């Protein structure tokens, strides 16, 4: 920089066309022979072009989601509890899909997600868990972090699956501070039940169909949505839960994407 250079502030003003004509002409005259000022103006041009560049986002149509979110009062779809047999059926469906993937792909190992050009490096950034508390009067209330849930309340689940290569499988499980697991998808009601991830769809606010109800212990409950390329098993995830710290926001599971929220289960 030379002693006669305009300030960075004035260069920014020049870039935005905010200098009066005389000042602009003087600055331009100086910049023609000043490598420093040329570099600053060039950087401003590159910076603003980068800000104006479209981020790597999938095509999402928000119309239905907006209409749905605007609808008041919210109504829940059903109060059906997914039975153990329903859970088994869901697990069987997931297993069947996994088998189909394995046969079509000619191998059974997990498929790596292609990385979008310039995409954020964390796959977690593309997924989101949305949980809703089903109230006795038929309304549903979105559970935000720190939100409250009754011990016997039903829970409805939706998710965002916006990865450029959408995740084909999802699981949703809750864990309390004592390490107990409460399965929402697949919905399991007995200790020792096994099951696998359910098929996931791409999109924003994708709903899972059923209300699931567990008898929860009072205190913090962290709900995890686990997205994967191949179905995870309940036992695999429960091992990860056992290995994780009670306050962990993410489970130690290789590959996949996760999002979790912690809610508070009230005592009766």
């Amino acid at each position, binding site marked *: 920089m030379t002693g006669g250079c305009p300030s*960075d*502030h004035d260069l*920014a*003003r020049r*870039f*935005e066309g*905010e200098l009066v004509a005389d000042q602009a002409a003087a600055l331009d005259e100086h910049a023609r022979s000043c490598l420093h000022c040329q570099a600053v103006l060039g*950087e*401003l041009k590159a*910076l603003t072009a*980068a*800000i104006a*560049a*479209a*981020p790597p*986002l999938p*095509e*999402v*149509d*928000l*119309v*239905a*989601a*907006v*209409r*749905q*979110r*605007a609808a008041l009062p*919210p*109504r*829940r*779809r059903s109060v059906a509890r997914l039975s153990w047999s329903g859970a088994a059926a869901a697990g069987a469906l997931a297993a069947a899909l996994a088998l189909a993937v394995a046969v079509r792909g000619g191998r059974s190992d997990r498929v790596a997600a292609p*990385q979008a*050009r*310039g*995409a*954020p*490096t*964390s796959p977690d*950034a*593309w997924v*989101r868990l949305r949980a*809703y508390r089903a109230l006795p009067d038929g309304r549903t209330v*979105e559970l*935000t*972090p*720190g939100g409250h849930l009754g011990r016997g309340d039903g829970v409805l*689940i*939706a998710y*965002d699956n*916006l990865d450029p290569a959408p995740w084909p499988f999802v699981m949703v499980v809750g864990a309390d501070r004592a390490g107990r697991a409460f399965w929402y998808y697949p919905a399991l009601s007995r200790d020792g039940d096994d099951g696998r991830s359910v098929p996931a*769809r*791409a999109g*924003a*606010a*994708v*709903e899972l*169909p059923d209300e699931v109800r567990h008898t929860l212990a009072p205190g913090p409950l962290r709900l995890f949505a686990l997205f994967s390329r191949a179905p995870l098993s309940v036992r695999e995830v429960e091992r990860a839960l056992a290995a994780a710290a009670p306050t962990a*926001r993410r489970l130690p599971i290789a590959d996949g994407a996760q999002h979790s*929220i912690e809610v508070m289960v009230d005592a009766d």
Partner: protein
Amino acid sequence: MPRASHLPHLVAVGDAEERDDDALMAAARAGDRAAFDALVRRHQRRVIGFAHKFFDHPALACDVAQDAFVDLLRAVPTYRADGHFRAFLFRLTLNRCRMAARSRRYEDGVGHALPVGETAAADREQERAVQAAMMKLTEKQREILLLRFWGGLSHDEASEALGVPVGTVKSRLFGALEAVRALWSRR
């Protein structure tokens, strides 16, 4: 919110609607649902992109964008068609971004600037570097840069969107440009 109808998957959206934004808002006020839907489809990428660049988090961005459009839908009955629709929509978007940034709802996502990936393609590397620098700015600085260069708002429109005088917009903008350039230059 879970209901009987499922939300659509990722779909290609087109916009054959030729009426301007104010005309669509007027039609929506008269009960034309398709007019409002056309507005959402016309501006959704711009709004999602704004929130994405604000948070560096695509799932949050979709969430915030939905809320902004819900606000727009609720504003249909009282909207004044004065040719300032873009500033109005960005004001709603900005409010939702600010609320989200302060809400525990987004505690797991806000403020976690994502690192520049080593595998990022060369043509995106610079954009990621700039985004990383943007995430180190104050919210006010990020807001003005996004309104001006992502939203394409004039200084006057940005003044409307932010609810501050034009002079404040300019001083904030020049300061933000200096700040982001300094951060980016140090990369």
